[in-house]
C-alpha cells in the first residue's frame, strides 16, 4: 500500500470527527489532528480503533502515543502492516 493510498483511507476515517473540511481536503503528512483538524481528543481513540479495524492491525499504547499527525500515523500503520506481512 502506498503512502498516498494510506492517506486516502485516513481521510475517509477522519471525516466524521472533524468539522475543518478544507483542512481535511488538503490533508498531507504534516497535518496535525488536534491543531489543524481540531479533532476532539476523545475522538482520537475512535480514529485509532477505526484504523485498527480498517487495516487489520493492533496498535499498542506506545504507538498510539505518537499518533498526533498524519505522518506519525502513516509510520505506525506501515510498521504494523510490515510486521503482519513478515
Amino acid at each position, binding site marked *: 500500500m502506498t503512502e498516498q493510498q494510506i492517506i486516502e483511507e485516513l481521510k475517509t476515517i477522519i471525516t466524521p470527527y472533524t468539522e475543518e473540511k478544507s483542512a481535511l481536503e488538503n490533508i498531507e503528512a504534516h497535518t496535525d489532528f488536534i491543531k489543524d483538524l481540531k479533532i*476532539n*481528543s*476523545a*475522538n*482520537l*481513540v*475512535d480514529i*485509532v*480503533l477505526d484504523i*485498527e479495524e480498517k487495516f487489520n492491525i493492533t496498535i499498542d*499504547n506506545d504507538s*498510539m*502515543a*505518537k*499518533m*498526533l499527525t498524519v505522518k506519525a500515523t502513516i509510520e505506525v500503520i506501515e510498521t504494523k502492516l510490515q510486521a503482519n506481512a513478515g
Partner: protein
Amino acid sequence: MLGNDIVDLNLAKIQSNWRRKNYLSKIFTEDEQQLILSAENPDLMVWVLWSMKESAYKIYNRKMHERCFNPLAFQCSILLLNNKIANGLVKNHALKILTASEIKTDFIHTIATDDILFPKKLRVWGNEYRLNYQDAFNKEIAGYQIYKNKSNIPEVKKIPGKIRHDVSVSHHGGHLRVIFDAEHTNTEQH
C-alpha cells in the same frame, strides 16, 4: 502550574460512544475501568476520569515540552466523590497532580495543579464559548488581561505592567472556562 478541562456532557454523549469495543482499554487502566463499570452512573465516571487525565496532561505537556496521546500513562485515583464534586490524584511516573472537578448536569470542569496545595487565589471565569472570548474576559475581569502569545498560547497578565500569571483555558461545545492564579506569577519563557 495549572491545567483545566471542561467536558460538555450533552456533546460528549453525541461525540463519543465509550461502550464501543476496545474503547475503554485504550484510555483507562484496569483500576479505572473497574471504577467506571461499578459506578452508579458509568457515563459520568467516564467523563470525570477523562477530564482528570486531560487537565493533568496540560500540565505534563507544559512541563515536559512534549506532546503525546497517552491517556493510559495518566493514572487516576478518586479521593472524594459525590454528586457535585470529585477530588482526585493523577500520576504519570514521578509527576503527581491534584485535581478538583465540579460536576453539573450539563458539564464537568476539572482544575489540576502540580502544587501540593491548590492555589489560594485561583480565579475561575466561565462563559459561553466564542472565538473572541478574550474580549469578554478583559471587559469583565478588572486588573487582568488575557491575550495570545506568539505561539498562540493564552497568557494572562496583571495590568498595568508585564507580570504574567499562570493560566489554563478549556472549551468544549458551548462551554468555556479560564482559570488563573492571581497570586503566583509565571516566569516561564516561550
